């Protein structure tokens, strides 16, 4: 009901700067801790351990690959290619919608929506928007080849192994 008449019982609000500053500090502190909690929760949802196939894995000694061979690792969705003494790892995950592409004589073909790539992994036709990724391949101290899918390299980057 009559706000105007009741309000004279309350102390005047304006000009009480201490109360306002304290209010602002409290609001700020609440907002800060709230967003900190939000951030923690967001970090919580990012797993540190995954249970699927690992991103970094060994594929065996260089000698197990014959020159000119292309071996597909379907579970990890990569293909290891050897040309002479050069090794490269190309992703077989289609850049369109994530299906696994198959190697053909002239490159790669996606069975889902028909995207094709040349032997360098550049997208040639179909809906694929970008080339296939190339991953880092390196030599472990014990002589095994190691593929790291977390590290991308420019297309055409080969690892030279002195035989």
């Amino acid at each position, binding site marked *: *009901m*009559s706000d105007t*008449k*009741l309000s004279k019982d309350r102390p005047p609000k304006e000009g009480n700067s201490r109360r306002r500053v304290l209010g602002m500090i409290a609001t700020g502190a609440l907002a800060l801790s709230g967003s900190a909690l939000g951030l923690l929760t967001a970090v919580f949802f990012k797993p540190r351990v995954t249970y699927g196939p690992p991103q970094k894995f060994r594929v065996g000694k260089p000698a197990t690959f014959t020159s000119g061979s292309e071996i597909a690792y*379907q*579970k990890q969705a990569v293909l290891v290619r050897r040309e002479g003494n050069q090794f490269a790892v190309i992703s077989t995950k289609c850049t*369109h*919608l994530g*299906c*696994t592409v198959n190697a053909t004589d002239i490159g790669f073909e996606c*069975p*889902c*929506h*028909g995207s094709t790539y040349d032997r360098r992994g550049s997208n040639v036709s*179909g*809906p694929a*928007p*970008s080339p296939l990724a190339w991953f880092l391949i390196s030599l472990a101290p014990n002589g095994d080849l190691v593929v790291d899918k977390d590290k991308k390299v420019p297309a055409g980057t080969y690892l030279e192994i002195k035989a």
Partner: protein
Amino acid sequence: MSQIEAPDYERLPVKPDKTYGLMCVVPTRSEAVNVQTEKQVLAWPDGLIRYVLLFLVLFMVLAVISLLFNAPLEEPANALHPPNPAKAPWYFLGLQEMVSYSAFWGGVGIPTMLVLLAIAAPYLESKPGGEGVWFHSSRSAANWIFLGIMGTLGLLTLIGTLFRGRNWDFVLPW
């Protein structure tokens, strides 16, 4: 509202040091007797009985569909054998169709803009008029834009659902 903001203090003095509450309810035929309430009907039973009937009809329709058609179940998931074509659920096939033209714009750009546009729509269309009337003439521009967008999305969804076959090539569904 106005009569609440400016009470008739002369006739009905309001004392600031008192609180007021509802003291009794007078039994009458109608709760309020002004003209505005004339077209009002009681939610119980006029509304609720209709809701219950609507529910029963809907339930029966869904039950009949469920008895006649089995939910699809294909072979177990196999990450090594992608089907051709691999399709998202039907309500995303409009997106998938757009993705086949432009990856970023089809999958992210346009959908984001559409959602923002939908949220902004009532604030953009601020001129009053035409509320509660189907296809009101004063809103035909807005309605046509809306129908245009929904129609395009519907068409893309339809193409993605029925007219896309192997290799996402255009096929006829019959």
